[in-house]
């Protein structure tokens, strides 16, 4: 662990101290810095609220991003509007930054839809659940950027566990082969459900990249400034035709894998304590306060904004209209399909037979 962190790029220590790095730096305006803080706090508030809603039976499941706010917000805020994000089911910080409404996300976890937003509007793909699959989509999208002669970049998100999947490694091969403008952003949150990262391999994740022919870099994933700095460099590299980069954001999943999980079965409480000291939000807060970039009233204001957001979410989730039964036949095909039409009619006829018998 200590050794790992030696290699990780850091610009802000856990104690909120700004440090320098020989290769990476970033200059942000005060309002940008406050913006990052706001993003992280609000994302955490959404996360807390969703966890609560799941406990109350309002959501079927929730996958918490607690502790990973800096990795997600820092990388997503580094992106240009036309860059495209490919998230997994845990990237609430990413979708937040891309401008996807939190209720769109919660609708999926409530089970009223399997997806929803138009990826072209916010340049953000759907939550991917099959581990690794979306990484190939990102590479393909990046190949498309290249063919278009455009300067956008695709950013694909995945976890430490995903590094084992064939799809992720094939994505590395294709990206290298086509020198595609893609950033591979791996959040190493130390766990793939119950499987600890360090049992999978004796080398660091970022080291995988070199053997595929592109650079890898490890960044302190709880340091929003470092994450942003490193991501910006990778984006620039891709944008200027120099191909992919693998970023390993070294972070920690502070919550359970999902609300169905019981992490006490496989990890020690002490580990969580250690990581609490590295909380991504706290360290930025200390820095902002110490530098006089933000004051009490700012922090209170964000707190307040969070409460309002939570209320909005709560009401929104509870008020979600259950989908019409026959909507399951929508969007299966983009063009007319006889079998679908037939089955839809059969269902409607069957359902109306009940109404008759009731009426």
């Amino acid at each position, binding site marked *: 662990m200590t050794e790992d962190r030696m290699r990780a790029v850091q610009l802000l220590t856990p104690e909120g101290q700004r440090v320098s790095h020989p290769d990476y730096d970033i200059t942000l305006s005060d309002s940008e810095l406050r913006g990052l803080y706001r993003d992280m706090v609000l994302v955490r508030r959404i996360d807390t609220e969703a966890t609560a809603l799941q406990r109350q039976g309002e959501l*079927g499941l929730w996958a918490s991003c607690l502790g990973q706010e800096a990795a997600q917000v820092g990388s997503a805020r580094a992106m240009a509007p036309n860059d495209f994000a490919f998230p997994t089911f845990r990237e609430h910080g990413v979708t937040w930054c891309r401008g996807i409404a939190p209720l769109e996300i919660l609708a999926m976890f409530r*089970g009223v839809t399997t997806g929803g937003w138009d990826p072209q509007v916010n340049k953000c793909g759907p939550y991917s659940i*099959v581990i690794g699959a979306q990484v190939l989509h990102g590479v393909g999208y990046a190949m498309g950027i290249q063919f278009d002669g455009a300067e956008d970049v695709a950013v694909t998100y995945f976890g430490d566990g995903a590094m084992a999947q*064939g799809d992720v490694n094939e994505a590395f091969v294709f990206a290298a082969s086509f020198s595609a403008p893609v950033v591979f952003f791996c959040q190493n949150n130390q766990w793939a459900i119950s*499987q600890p990262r360090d049992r999978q391999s004796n080398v660091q994740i970022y080291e995988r990249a070199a053997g595929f022919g592109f650079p890898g870099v490890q960044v302190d994933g709880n340091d929003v400034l470092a994450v942003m700095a490193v991501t910006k460099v990778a984006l620039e590299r891709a944008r200027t035709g120099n191909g992919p980069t693998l970023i390993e954001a070294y972070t920690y999943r502070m919550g359970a894998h999902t609300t169905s999980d019981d992490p006490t079965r496989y990890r020690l409480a002490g580990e969580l304590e250690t990581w609490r000291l590295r909380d991504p939000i706290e360290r930025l807060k200390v820095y902002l306060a110490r530098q006089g970039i933000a004051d009490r009233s700012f922090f209170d204001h964000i707190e307040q904004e969070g409460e309002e957001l939570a209320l909005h979410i709560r009401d929104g989730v509870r008020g979600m209209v259950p*989908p019409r*039964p026959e*909507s399951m036949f929508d969007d299966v095909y983009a063009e007319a399909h006889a*079998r679908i039409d037939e089955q839809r009619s059969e269902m409607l006829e069957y359902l109306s037979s009940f109404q008759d018998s009731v009426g």
Partner: protein
Amino acid sequence: MVKAINSGLRKAMERDPKVILFGQDIGRLGGVFRVTDGLQKDFGEHRVMDAPLAESGIIGTAVGLAMRGYRPVLEIQFDGFVYPGFDQIVSQVAKFHRRMAGAIAMPITIRIPYGGGIGAVEHHSESPEAYFAHTAGLRVLTPADPQAAYLTIQQAIACNDPVIYFEPKRRYWDKGEVDESLAALELGAVADPWRARVVHTGSDVTVACYGPMVRTCLEAAEASTDISLEVVDMQSISPLDLETLASSVERTSRLVVVHEASMSGGVGAEIAAHISEKCFYTLEAPVIRVTGFDVPYPASRLEEYFLPDLDRVIDAAERVMRY
């Protein structure tokens, strides 16, 4: 049923030291459904192994383990995650015995919690059994109740052929008597896993089903007052015991087939095609299928409309009676 499978796995491991379990999170966590709970503690890390997050890797290495004389029992975490391992199953596991001209066997059991009804997110409620039933070289089993699960998991593991073992996850928490004194491997014809079982006798309509739908059909049989339903639990999806089913249909002369998977090309098509042929002169009505629709598994708030339920089974029985 979780407990029954757990006990069955334990029995199999006690019986044969070559039986090893391999899958994601099956060790300390005991699997996301706790089916392997406590087994790593009791049998050690070499016999209950957590695998890296790669299904093709799990299945492919199992082929090698089988070549080395092991009897791997794999867990795929959810139905929707078996596809990355499809190539290894279809082109390797299923064909290896043939490719070796019979010189070695592939006694691999692949456990897959499957089916819907638990309010899950995408990819966690699928019924992919038809893909495997269409694949020569594989056997496909699915238990309907805890007692069957306790016995058939042991029989699957003892079988020298690869068995895809579909566990109906919505029935995981079903309680039921399990007689652990029964010796699974010595029951012979009494509990032949490859035979269908008549689980409810009736005279008007035969209802063929398997896995999670057996309980649904039994409930329909109980609830159906006008029409007498005979419920046949196919149990083995490949090979299908169509003989037992046909002899039921010879008595009732009507058949309804029920499964969760989409209708087109589902296992019900094979059952209907076969029975329509073999019982041509007996059938007084066409075989009717009650199944999921030909759409991707819907969002969970819609699953009650997707999944066959008691009403749809009875409705179908009424329809075949109208002929």
